[in-house]
């Protein structure tokens, strides 16, 4: 816990750099493409359409939660946060390696490199949500105050993402295989998370796997609050929060223990 407070103080001291790095990330990425930022919307939209076709029309996966919710929205609500998680993690994993020329030359808190990639992905995520909002208006999905739950849910997701990102970024600097391992892991993980299917379809003897998977709890919580207008399952929610916090503490302490050797290992 103490390490987290210290790191936060360090990052605040270097906030100008964090800001510059984040805007570099955002500005540079789409500068050369014609559609520019439109890609962040187009990408999940295309993904959603094809997946809806495959899983709803062909495999006929039910949405359960409420009969009148179209599968495409049901999928999208979970897919967007999952994409945020997966994209953050995979780009954070390469963030130290791609800035190796900086790491060997100038001192600054290295966690800024990881943080700035994650923040840039959050900006993408916010843009991608425009489509979701649009969709929800068209289909007139009712919302209520329980929607505010998405704030703590999002917060937990970011704690979890940051913890894992710090770990993978530092580990990838030593063994570059980590990035390939991660993309395989993310692919499998996606199927073990109720994104394309509703959580209630999971047989009860396997429920434990989903309770211990913070992403499953998070994704399910988004659905319950946005589409169902209900509240998340408190027990699972608290377990997910504690697990995420542990992951962050472990991730950060691993990162800090390796940090001094980053320049040696590149």
């Amino acid at each position: 816990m103490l390490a987290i407070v210290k790191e936060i103080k360090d990052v605040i001291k270097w906030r100008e750099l964090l800001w510059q790095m984040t805007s570099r990330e955002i500005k540079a990425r789409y500068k050369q493409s014609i559609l520019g930022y439109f890609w962040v919307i187009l990408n999940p939209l295309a993904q959603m359409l094809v997946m809806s076709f495959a899983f709803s029309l062909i495999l006929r996966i039910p949405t359960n939660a409420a009969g009148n919710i179209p599968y495409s929205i049901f999928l999208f609500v979970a897919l967007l946060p999952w994409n945020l998680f997966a994209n953050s993690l995979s780009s954070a994993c390469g963030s130290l390696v791609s800035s190796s020329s900086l790491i060997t030359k100038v001192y600054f808190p290295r966690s800024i490199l990881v943080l700035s990639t994650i923040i840039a992905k959050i900006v993408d995520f916010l843009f991608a949500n425009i489509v979701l909002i649009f969709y929800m208006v068209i289909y007139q999905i009712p919302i209520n105050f329980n929607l505010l739950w998405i704030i703590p849910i999002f917060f937990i997701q970011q704690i979890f993402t940051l913890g894992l990102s710090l770990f993978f970024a530092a580990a990838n600097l030593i063994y570059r295989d980590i990035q390939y391992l991660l993309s395989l892991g993310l692919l499998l993980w996606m199927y073990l998370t109720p994104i394309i299917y509703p959580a209630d379809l999971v047989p009860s003897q396997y429920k434990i796997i989903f309770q211990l998977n913070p992403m499953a709890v998070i994704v399910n919580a988004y659905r319950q609050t946005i589409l169902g207008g209900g509240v998340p399952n408190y027990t699972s929610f608290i377990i997910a929060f504690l697990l995420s916090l542990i992951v962050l503490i472990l991730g950060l302490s691993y990162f800090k223990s390796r940090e001094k050797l980053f320049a040696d290992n590149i």
Partner: protein
Amino acid sequence: MNDTVIKFKNVTKKFSLLSQKTFKEFIPALIKGEETKKGFTALDDISFEIQKGETIGIIGPNGSGKSTILKLIAGVMSPTTGTVTTQGKISPLIELGAGMHPELTGRENIYLNGAILGLKRKDIDKNIENIIDFSEIREFINQPVKHYSSGMYMRLAFSIAIHVEPEILLVDEILAVGDTDFQAKCFKKMEEFKAAENVTTVFVSHSLGQVESFCTRVIYLNHHQILFDGDPSKAIQIYLADTENK
């Protein structure tokens, strides 16, 4: 008041180079019981102190640990044993342009690099005109730096680094690039720092002429140790004698 700005106390730097960078190489090596780490000593029990306002040259053959010393001062690396203490704002001029992003414009890169060197936005706002003027590339400043020539790149990077108002300036071989006019300009600026007396410069170069004319004290490194520390011309003499004897 203590005027020591850089202090190395019994500093040893060992690199444990991983011989295998991927699992494919690592796992068989582990099974066969081969060594997975190779040790390499870059600096061996080195101690020295640098006072405020000094202009220090570090000379020695390739691989003698010159750049490692700069990296230890910059705080980028940590010593294996011993301690390195520094006081004041450090501006590394080590391989200029490390923080440049090719897709961003010159102006955007000034802000980015300034932040990397620890500047606040308002400090950069205050200095940006000076930086652009010094670099002499005003007409290209709003273009992406990927269109710059390497000379222009270097001008911009040098301009940023010297406008950080450094207290410790680390210079590594940078003046090898750029045209003669700009080189002269850089040296003039560094002479100003030297005269200012509150700036400490650590200068690593293979150009012994530059070192002799510019530095007030020279550290000669070889075989990972300090073989001489003091008068520039004497240091160079010993270094040259060592090279000839080989």
